[in-house]
């Protein structure tokens, strides 16, 4: 037992190249630079302590230099909008709808954009019925299809009108008055704008368009205005001789009356 204890004590006191030595026996070094196989540690400071063991200064410096710097936290995925907008492929349904839209734009002279915030099915049915009497059709198209079509065509300025619940009212003939009368019957339809004969009009523009007289009347007005100008110049030129002749006529008349007055007296 005592031999075991002594053996253990021997091992405990001499660590086998595992810890730094408190005392090194010089005579155990066979050559320069060779560490001994056993190093005597009589009462070394322990590695694991209850307080924080002061690091060697060089170790402190090393730890300070190699400290962990965590990477900066990236913004959460939804914080910033995407820089490049992902272009979605156009579904075949969209292509069909686009073709329909193109046909509509080519055929119809009048295309009005109306926002209806509320229309029950019956209201819509009655409105469609009333408009159908004047050969005006009501069409629905999804907003994205409309916008993508408009942006690629010459009607790009209509694009800001297409927001929210919008309805297209189209007709071959520009029958604005009838359309306005029917729309006035349903209060929730708001006329936003119209494209009449490839020219974009606002709501007030549509109103003034409806108040325009027919083409013949306008032509007559134009012709009369032009002829008025020419007749005015003609009268101006002839003003002097006309005045002179009127004066002479008046003089002759007066001469005549004087002569008769003299004869009478």
């Amino acid at each position: 037992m005592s031999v075991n204890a002594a053996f253990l004590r021997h091992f405990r006191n001499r660590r086998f190249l595992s810890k730094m030595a408190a005392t090194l026996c010089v005579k155990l070094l066979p050559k320069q630079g060779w560490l001994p196989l056993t190093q005597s540690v009589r009462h070394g400071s322990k590695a694991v302590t209850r307080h924080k063991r002061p690091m060697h200064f060089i170790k402190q410096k090393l730890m300070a230099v190699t400290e962990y710097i965590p990477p900066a936290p990236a913004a959460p995925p939804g914080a910033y909008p995407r820089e490049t907008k992902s272009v979605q492929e156009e579904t075949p349904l969209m292509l069909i709808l686009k073709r329909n839209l193109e046909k509509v734009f080519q055929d119809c002279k009048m295309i009005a954009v109306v926002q209806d915030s509320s229309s029950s099915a019956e209201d819509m049915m009655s409105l469609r019925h009333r408009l159908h009497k004047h050969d005006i059709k009501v069409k629905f198209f999804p907003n994205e299809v409309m916008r993508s079509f408009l942006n690629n065509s010459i009607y790009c300025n209509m694009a800001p009108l297409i927001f929210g619940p919008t309805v297209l009212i189209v007709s071959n003939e520009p029958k604005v008055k009838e359309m306005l009368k029917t729309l006035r019957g349903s209060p929730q339809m708001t006329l936003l704008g119209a494209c009449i004969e490839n020219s974009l009009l606002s709501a007030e523009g549509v109103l003034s368009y409806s108040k325009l007289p027919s083409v013949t009347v306008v032509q007559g007005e134009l012709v009369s205005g032009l002829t008025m100008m020419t007749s005015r110049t003609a009268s101006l030129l002839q003003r002097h001789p006309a005045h002179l002749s009127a004066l002479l006529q008046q003089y002759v008349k007066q001469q005549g009356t004087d002569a008769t007055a003299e004869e009478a007296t």
Partner: protein
Amino acid sequence: MAASRKATVVLKTVKKIAIQFSAFESNVRSTREFLAKVGSEKARATNINCEVISTVKHDKSEPVVDITYVDGERLLMKGAKLTSSEMLNTFQSLCTAKDPQAKTAAKK
């Protein structure tokens, strides 16, 4: 702020809503959405006497929502920089403030 369970707007305390905007501007989106929600059939059904009038102009003016309540108070909202949900929240909070009895009775 407790959001109402239904998305519909109750117009019982409102006398008149006048919305005007310039159709071709890009900042009218929220106002138009507000109009769509307030002018819907369900909202109108809550109060048939309430008028919802919308005017479309072309003079690049700001979109304005003018609400006149039954007790004479007016709420003016300039919708150029507001979102439709903000406008709806303000409008609904004022409505519930005006008519607390009916609301609490309905919720209980």
